[in-house]
């Protein structure tokens, strides 16, 4: 085998310029596909991270039916569930939330809003919407009258930071209940819907307003690593045995807009990858076929000396394998360098896209950064080696079909 490898290596460099060009084409396409994929991977991961922290978490617990209907009567009693989930391995934070549709009124304007009751300490640590809030801008306790208000809503209500306003919601028994709140902080997420309707208060205060104290609509579970989701989900499902009528779902089901937007974007990327690899394969077929056609006389001699046709075919396939492996190694090295740059520095699109570009329900970070995915990089390199072998099949079969006399007649 080493003899044939040695021969394949020498044959590969028979036409140095052609081999270098082919190697460069394959290696650059591998680099391009790996780097683009890792960039998308990083961007998607950033969007998912931002999405789950502001939204449903990696895993969310709901009363069955709430996810589909958003019916505020479908809440459930917390009864220590939050603390039980928080104690599980792999869980970074648990965010219980109570959603109350309400009417916000100032002395000048009124607007329909979605009041979110949260555990302020937990939410502050995780929710990216609250990042820009000043130190003293968050709701101070669960039962306080503090409110964090969306910037657009604040403008529409024509009130300012520190001023009071009233929210009115329908209680469980059907009666209207009003609470006086004070603007403690203002958030500007860049998403029109959120900025125009968000009022965040303590969970107890929200419970008092809706008459469902101690209840939640959503328990968003943030994991320390997204890869733990299967294991943690299984453990949460076991805990839900004590909470009949509830269900635990992954973020893909809880936030289908984001999941579908990523799926669609990735599908179009895969199509581009396929076209890149197809073009490269055609180039490799051309190179290998040229290399075989100009050596027909030599193949005739090799067959005359006593080589079996299958040995000749194997020699050509081995040449393609060496070419593919070499290109895969160089391409992966270049792909790694490109990924390293994209992880460390990234691509700043701030001058090309608006600062608050929304994608799949989350704000798109204009600085795109890649994330490493070595398994996928290896898989792409493997595919390319396979494609190179596939490209060599026709030239190999063609060479294996000639007779020694036919081969030696070639000039």
């Amino acid at each position: 085998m080493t003899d044939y490898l040695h021969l394949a290596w020498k044959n590969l460099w028979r036409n140095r310029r052609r081999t270098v060009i082919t190697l460069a084409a394959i290696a650059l396409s591998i680099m391009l596909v790996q780097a683009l994929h890792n960039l998308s991977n990083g961007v998607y991961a950033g969007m998912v991270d931002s999405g789950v922290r502001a939204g449903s978490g990696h895993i969310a617990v709901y009363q069955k039916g709430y996810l589909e209907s958003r019916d505020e009567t479908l809440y459930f009693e917390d009864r220590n569930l939050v603390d039980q989930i928080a104690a599980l391995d792999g869980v970074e934070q648990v965010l219980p939330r109570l959603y109350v549709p309400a009417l916000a009124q100032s002395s000048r304007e009124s607007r329909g809003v979605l009041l979110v009751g949260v555990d302020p300490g937990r939410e502050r640590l995780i929710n990216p919407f609250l990042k820009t809030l000043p130190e003293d801008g968050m709701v101070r306790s669960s039962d306080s009258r503090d409110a964090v208000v969306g910037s657009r809503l604040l403008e529409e209500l024509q009130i300012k930071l520190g001023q009071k306003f009233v929210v009115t919601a329908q209680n469980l028994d059907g009666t209207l209940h009003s609470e006086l709140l004070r603007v403690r902080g203002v958030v500007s997420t860049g998403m029109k819907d959120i900025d125009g309707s968000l009022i965040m208060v303590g969970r107890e205060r929200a419970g008092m307003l809706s008459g469902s104290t101690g209840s939640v609509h959503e328990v968003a579970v943030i994991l320390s690593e997204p890869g733990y989701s299967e294991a943690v989900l299984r453990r949460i499902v076991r805990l839900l045995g004590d909470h009949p009528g509830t269900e635990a779902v992954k973020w893909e089901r809880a936030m289908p807009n984001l999941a579908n937007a990523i799926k669609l974007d990735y599908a179009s990327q895969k199509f581009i990858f396929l076209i890149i690899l197809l073009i490269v394969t055609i180039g490799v077929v051309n190179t290998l076929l040229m290399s075989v056609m100009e050596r027909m006389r030599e193949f005739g001699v090799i067959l005359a000396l006593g080589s079996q046709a299958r040995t000749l075919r194997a020699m050509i396939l081995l040449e393609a394998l060496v070419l593919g492996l070499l290109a895969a190694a160089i391409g992966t090295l270049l792909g790694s360098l490109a990924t390293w740059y994209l992880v460390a520095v990234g691509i700043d699109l701030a001058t090309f896209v608006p600062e608050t570009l929304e994608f799949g329900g989350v704000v798109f970070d204009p600085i795109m950064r890649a994330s490493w995915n070595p398994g996928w990089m290896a898989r792409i390199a493997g595919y390319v080696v396979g494609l190179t072998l596939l490209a060599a099949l026709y030239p190999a079969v063609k060479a294996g079909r000639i007779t020694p006399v036919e081969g030696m007649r070639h000039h």
Partner: protein
Amino acid sequence: MPLIELKNVSKIYRLGSQSVTALSELSLLFEAGEFAVLAGPSGSGKTTALNLIGCLDRPTSGQVIVSGMNLGTASSRQLADFRLQHIGFIFQSYNLIPVLTAAENAEFTLMLQKVPKKSRRERVRRLFAELGIDGLEERRPADLSGGQQQRVAIARAMAGNPQVILADEPTANLDSHTAEELLELMRRLNREQGTTFVFSSHDDRVISQARRVIRLEDGCLSDDTGADR
């Protein structure tokens, strides 16, 4: 039993709607250890006869039997294996593999025979010394003269210890002095090692060196001056 036997062998090539008879009803016997030349002008059927003896082609009719094996009934795989084990080839234009060194070229048939590298190197080293090209082992064919390249080709043909070496116009591309040297070398190998040589030529100076001269004309045997020459 003769080493090579051609019984009423004909070879007809079809070129579109036309047929060209390259050999017609040729019958020949070669004993082991012969040093014979197939002589004749261009187109007389010398190369066709060598190709048939060397299992590179199949006759249209008749039988070719080499070392007891009827080549007409053998499969392509069997023929390839037979060539590898029993026949050595020397070509007019040397046909060395350009990317391999002289030693690697000479080792090529041994590599196909799966002979271990160390034994191959030793065998080729001895052959190069015998053929007077020792010291050229690491040179590429492009860096060798025509005579040196043909000696490497002889080493390649000899390396596998074949029963018969077939040489198609082996001196046609060489100057007369080198051609003379090469013929003497083949004669010595034939004499000392008993290897059967059958070669083709249209050069009278070369033909005169052979112990047996088989003249072909238009694919037919015109003269066969015997082994006692």
